[in-house]
Structures are given as structure tokens and as C-alpha cells.
């Protein structure tokens, strides 16, 4: 028994070693690219590697990271969620209404957070339920939701920006801990939680399975429908969290917030090595992907490049990342 157990533990150990070697290889590429970017910007600009700027980058990465973590769930099952940018606006507007209620500051803030998260979660659930129930492409359903949510945000807010939140709420947005923005720590916790769910739970296992072969998962007796719904619901939930962070940072909630955020989130996931056809990828990759986009944006500003140039370069980076991933996937497979 003892011998057997050790043997098994060894298999488990070597198994993990092998797996992590491959996954290291998978993420190493992105990690190296990130390191290269950091070195380039440290050398070419004066202010890149300063405490202030690092705090800046972390703050700028935060919202995209939160959205990208949710997006990872959806892309892993071979779906896509185009609605998160609009959902962010809708959640922010709903929360803005709630926070303006005259019920005392702690209550108003709690209501706002609850409202944002609830709105995001419900919309995500709708995305998932509709596309899973009728087996429709999530691209189309979430494109519809993109318009619905944006319209709803404009309608509820009367197309007006909501200002003047309680100062306690704003303080949360700018609070730092040893120079690290608290909102970033929230995003990081979320990423950690997502990593745990995807790698250590039955649900996470089924999501990877779904992305590879829906039929195999169904025939193994699992409910494909609820897995899909859950993935989209999680994505909507992260849009709610992102909305709260957005409000706390900018002290406004605007119905035109978050335009195009979904594309940045998708880009972070894809740069992070998650396959658009599903079944392959990781939250660690997404984290690195979000950082690449954030560092690139920050560094290019410091270099004094124009908005237009930055946009072009970011686009090129996305394309190059996907090409590199193609070769990396080939290599790690053999």
C-alpha cells in the first residue's frame, strides 16, 4: 500500500511537473514579451520605472483586467461577449442612481454595489441563457445586448452623467497600499479566484471540456446548458465589478462609459494565449495580456506618441501576439 501510494504520488508529481512545464512554456512567451516591453520603456523613457508611474499603470490595467477575467470564461467555452463595455455603462448608471439615494452613506454605497453587480449578473445570465437555449452564436446575442444595455443606460440616465458621489466612495478609488492601488488588488483577487475556479473545480474542468467538445461533455452526463449560462453570468458579474471601480476612480457614472472596452478585454484574453475557438487558455495568460496592453499604452504615451500612433501599434501587437501563439501552440503540442 505504502509503495503504491508513493508511486502514485510520484506520478502525480511528475504529472504536475510536466503540466506546469508546458504551461510555463505557454505563458513564458507572453511573460518574456512583457519583460521586453518593460525594459524597452525603462531605457527609452525617463519616467517609466518610477513608483508613481507604476501605480498609474496598475490603475490603468485594473478595469481591463476585471473585464478580461470574465471574458476568459466565455472565450474558454468558445463564446464571445461583446456586451461588456455597454454593460459597464448600464451598471454604472444603475449604481449612480442608487448611490444618489438619500439613505445614508454606507447604505447608499452598499446599494450601489449591489445594484451594479446585480444588473451585470442578470444581463450576463440573459446572454448565456438565450444563446445556450436556442444554440445561437453568442457573437450575435451579445451584439444585441451591447445595444440593449447601451440604450438602457442612456434611457435610465436621461443621457446625463451622474456626479457627486460620497467622498468615502471616491476615497476607495484612489486608495493605495504600499503604492499599489486597492482597486488593482480587488482585480487581482478576482483573477486569483477565477484561476482557482478554472483549475481546481469541477465547473472549471467542464468549461475546458465544453470548449473542446461539447458533445463529449453532454454524453458524459453533464448539463451543458448551465455551464454555458454560468460562464456568461460570470462575465456579466465582472462587468458590474468593473463599473463600481470605474465610478470610484472617475467619480462619475456616465451612460457613454466603456465604449470599446469589450475589444480591449478580448484582446487581453487572446494575447494571453486563450484560443478563440475555446478549450485552451488560462487566467494567468489573461493577466499578462492585460498588462501588455496597459504597459504598451502607458509607455507609448511617455514616448510622446500620438493617440493615432498608439492605436496602430496596439493593433499590430495584437496581431503579432496571435501569430506567435500559433507557433507556440504548435510547439507545445509536439
Amino acid at each position: 500500500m505504502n509503495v503504491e501510494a508513493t508511486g502514485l504520488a510520484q506520478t502525480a508529481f511528475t504529472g504536475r511537473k510536466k503540466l506546469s512545464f508546458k504551461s510555463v512554456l505557454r505563458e513564458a512567451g507572453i511573460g518574456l514579451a512583457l519583460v521586453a516591453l518593460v525594459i524597452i520603456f525603462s531605457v527609452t523613457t525617463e519616467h517609466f520605472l518610477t513608483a508613481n508611474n507604476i501605480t498609474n499603470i496598475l490603475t490603468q490595467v485594473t478595469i481591463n483586467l476585471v473585464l478580461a477575467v470574465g471574458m476568459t470564461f466565455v472565450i474558454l467555452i468558445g463564446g464571445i461577449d461583446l456586451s461588456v463595455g455597454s454593460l459597464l455603462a448600464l451598471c454604472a448608471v444603475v449604481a449612480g442612481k442608487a448611490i444618489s439615494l438619500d439613505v445614508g452613506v454606507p447604505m447608499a454605497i452598499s446599494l450601489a454595489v449591489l445594484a451594479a453587480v446585480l444588473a451585470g449578473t442578470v444581463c450576463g445570465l440573459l446572454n448565456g441563457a438565450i444563446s445556450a437555449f436556442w444554440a445561437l452564436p453568442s457573437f450575435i446575442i451579445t451584439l444585441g445586448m451591447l445595444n440593449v444595455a447601451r440604450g438602457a443606460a442612456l434611457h435610465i440616465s436621461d443621457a446625463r452623467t451622474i456626479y457627486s458621489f460620497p467622498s468615502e466612495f471616491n476615497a476607495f478609488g484612489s486608495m493605495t497600499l504600499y503604492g499599489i492601488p486597492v482597486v488593482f488588488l480587488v482585480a487581482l483577487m478576482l483573477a486569483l479566484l477565477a484561476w482557482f475556479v478554472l483549475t481546481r473545480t469541477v465547473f472549471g474542468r467542464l468549461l475546458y471540456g465544453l470548449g473542446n467538445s461539447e458533445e463529449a461533455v453532454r454524453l458524459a452526463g453533464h448539463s451543458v446548458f448551465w455551464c454555458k449560462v454560468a460562464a456568461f453570468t460570470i462575465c456579466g458579474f465582472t462587468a458590474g465589478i468593473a463599473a463600481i471601480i470605474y465610478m470610484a476612480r472617475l467619480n462619475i457614472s456616465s451612460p457613454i462609459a466603456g465604449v470599446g472596452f469589450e475589444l480591449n478585454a478580448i484582446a487581453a484574453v487572446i494575447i494571453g494565449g486563450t484560443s478563440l475557438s475555446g478549450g485552451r487558455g488560462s487566467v494567468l495568460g489573461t493577466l499578462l495580456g492585460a498588462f501588455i496592453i496597459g504597459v504598451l499604452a502607458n509607455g507609448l504615451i511617455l514616448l510622446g506618441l500620438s493617440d493615432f500612433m498608439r492605436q496602430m501599434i496596439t493593433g499590430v501587437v495584437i496581431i503579432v501576439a496571435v501569430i506567435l501563439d500559433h507557433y507556440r501552440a504548435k510547439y507545445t503540442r509536439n
Partner: protein
Amino acid sequence: MDIVQTREASQGQTDNQETLQDISPDILTVRDLHKNFGGVKALKGVSLSLRAGEVHALVGENGAGKSTLIKILTGVFQPSAGDILLDGQVYKPAGPRDAKFRGIQVVHQEFNLLPHLSVAENISFEQMPRTRLGLLDKKEMDRRARVALDAIGLQDVDVNARVYSLGIAHRQLIEIARALQSDSRILILDEPTATLTDRETDRLFNIVAAIRAQGVTVVFVSHHLNEVFANCDRVTVLRSGETIVTEEISETSPDQLVALMVGRRLAKEMALEKTTTELGSVALSLQNFRVAKSPYEEGVSFDLRYGEILGIAGLVGAGRTELLRGIFGIDPVASGQMMREGTPVSFASPREAIKSGIGFVTEDRKDEGLILDMAIAANVALAALEKVSQKGLLNRLAELSLADRLGSMLKLKSGGLSDRAASLSGGNQQKVVIAKWLARDPSVLLLDEPTRGVDVGAKAEIYAIMRSLAQKGVAMLVVSSELPELITLCDRILVLSDHRVQGEIPREAFSEEAILRLAYQRKDQGI
């Protein structure tokens, strides 16, 4: 001719060109071919010659190098060493297109059809006919497709049908029609009959005989030795990347070939027949069970007992797979009743069927049975995740130990349980699928073509597994197109035709003729 590109090739050429042209009727000669993939030696000395107008069988276990050899012949891979002469000239195809241009065609084991295009578009896909204006000539395309289909006896297939709407057997035949369309000198059929029933196989061999009469050389890769002996002129045995022997069919026997293929290992298991065990109580019983596609009210009725292996025979389209899918709750049931241990049940989803102790080894291993990109251990645990988790949290050690236990029970050969399922050979993949269900200790197991695309050695092992399961009292329903398989394994065989039971054959009366006679019959329902 190209100036020879490598030294090996030039030696081969100077040595052989003249003699070959003068005395040998060989159309193609492969000499000492090697192919390495990284450190793996897929081919380590394959030699082969093909005569014009012969049907040449290529046999060997999975992993023996047949696919690699075919891929080199068709220009997909370049050999690491060795040379190939086509008509006495060095043949080094730059790619599949070049190989086709030189007249070497292959019909692959995996399907290469475009599911959403029509049959006609698929058949003409390599060379679309054009009108004088350069537009697609649809009439001509349809006409060519009609001719190609008629030539292989597929009069019943509409050229405008979308390929996805056709069954797997028809798709295979359409691939053959496509390959035969262009002028072939050498036609390679890579396990063409794996998915075909006997009637379609006969049809295929009639076609093979016809094209051979036109002087085309046919290379026939198959696990089915009876087909090899019935239709081929010569046979070459490959084992572990080497040519073992090339023999005239008349000078060898199936037993001898099997012995050569597996080397020293003797496939005794193959000869073993199921020892009749005491049958238990009725595990599953169907009464007038009908799936949506079934045209007749009477449907299917039978009792399956614990410890029994019940075979389901029938032609493609007889409703065998549909029956299993209906039982397992994948497709809706139109009418009739199903009883599980005497209690009426109806499964709305596979989930419910699984809960009642049923497992389903599907025909399509790659899409339905396995998640190829996932670890072997994860695949084994896929249907029994609650056994390797607590409150939704996975216990990886438990998962590995489950996979380890079942893997050693089924003699699974793998590099490691954390390797991807795709890294396994066909036979071992099938063992993983079986392990996935055994992880749940099912009391009823449905198996659809359990040894499709599996080599001789693994096949014997899978038979042994099934027999030992029967001894433990598991009730099994086995669909197979290989009659010897059913005859070896089963206690009883039901023959289906048109979604109805055409007849039942008890073990004492088993014979291929008896099964075929029933399969080809149609009930006279006063139509």
C-alpha cells in the same frame, strides 16, 4: 526530370534506374525509407514495390508506420532517408498537389469533405468546372458528380444534398468517388471499409476490381484480413516502422499474417469465444421502442439480461446507432416503452441514463467519446467527476489514482496519465473511453463499434475486457459492423433492418450467412 536533389536519391537512381525500366513491371518502388519526427523513428526501413494493376494490401498494427508511409507517398511528409522510384524515376513530391499531379491519389481514413457544401461541390472541389466566362459551371459540376456517384453505385444520393445530411458511410463513398474522378495511377485506400457495412464494402470492392482492370494500382490499407484475402493480389506487412515481408496472397494465410503483424505476441484472445455465463435478471427491456426516425410502429423490442452481451447487427441505416442514442436519452423517443429492472423509465438526457447506471461507448471517439486536448486522467474522470471531487473542488490525486487503477486494469499504454488523450493510439484511446464509463461502475454498457480503427492487439484486449465485464454481471449491448466481432463476443444477436428487429439468432446458430440473410431481408408488411 529534375536533377536529383540529394545524395541518397542519386545513388538509388544510378543503382536502379536501368534495371528497373528494363525488367521490372513495378510502377513504384520504395527503398529503405526512413522518417524521424524529432527523436521518434516512425519509419526505420520500409521497402515496398507496387506492380501496375495490382491490388496491394498494406497491413500492420496501428503505429506500424502505414499512415506515415502513405503521407510520404502523397507528399505530405518528406522522408528522412531512402528513396522512391515512380516508373523508374526518382519521385519526390513537393506536396499533396504534386503527388496528385503524378497520379497518386489517396482516400483518407479521416474525412476531408466540406460538410456544408453539396455532394457535387465536394466531388469537383479540386477542379471546379468553369463556363467560358470563367464562372462556375454548375450544370457540368452536377453532371460530373452524377457520373462519379453512379460509377460507384450511389444512384440514391442526390448531388445537391449537403454532405452533413449524409451518413458516415455515404461520406466515405463520396470521398472515393472524388478520388476516382481524377486520373489515378495509384489509388491508396486508407481503411476505407472501417465505417462500411458488408453491402457497401462489396460495392467498394466491385469498384476496386473495375478500376484495377483499367490498370490502376490500388493500395489497400485495412485491419480486416478477410477483405485482404478476398480482394488483394499481394500483401505487405509492416511492423514498428519496418517492412516485415511482402507475400503473394495465395501463399499466405490470415493466421500467418496476424502472427507477422503482432510479432511474437500471439493474438490468442482473438480466437477465444465468450464463455457463457449464468445470465442474471432482466437489466433493460424495450417494448416497441421507437426513435423519431423509425418509420414503423412496431419499433424494437428485446430483453437484455445482466451478464449478457447482446449484439446488434444490421446494415448502415438499419437504425443501430439511433437505437443506442434513443436508449441513452440523446435523441427523443417517439413511442414505445423502456424498462430498467422492470420499472418503466424514460431518459430526457444522457445525464438521467447515466444516473440509472448506463454507459455509452460511442462510435465517434474523437468528438463524442474523448476530449482529445485534455489529459488522459481528466478524460477517465469526465463522467465520474463527483467521485474525484468534494463540494465541486477537484481532487487531482484522486483523479490520478482513479485513472491509474482503471488504466492498469485495462492495460492502458501511455506516456503518462497527464499526457493529452490525443497522444494515444486508437486502441488506447478506446480504452480510455471504456475506462471513463467503468469509473462509474455501470451495470449496463452500450457499445457502438467498440473496436473501430483499433489494431489487432488492442482489439483482443478490448474483447477480453468485455468478457470479464460480462462475467461480473454487466449487461452489454454491442453494435458492430464486423460480423466476426459479434460472433466472437455475443450471447445472442439481433438483426435490425429499417429500425425493426428482423430476427434474433441464438449463439448456437451464429454464422455470417445467417446474419446477412436477415439483414438483407425486408419484412413484408403488406407494402
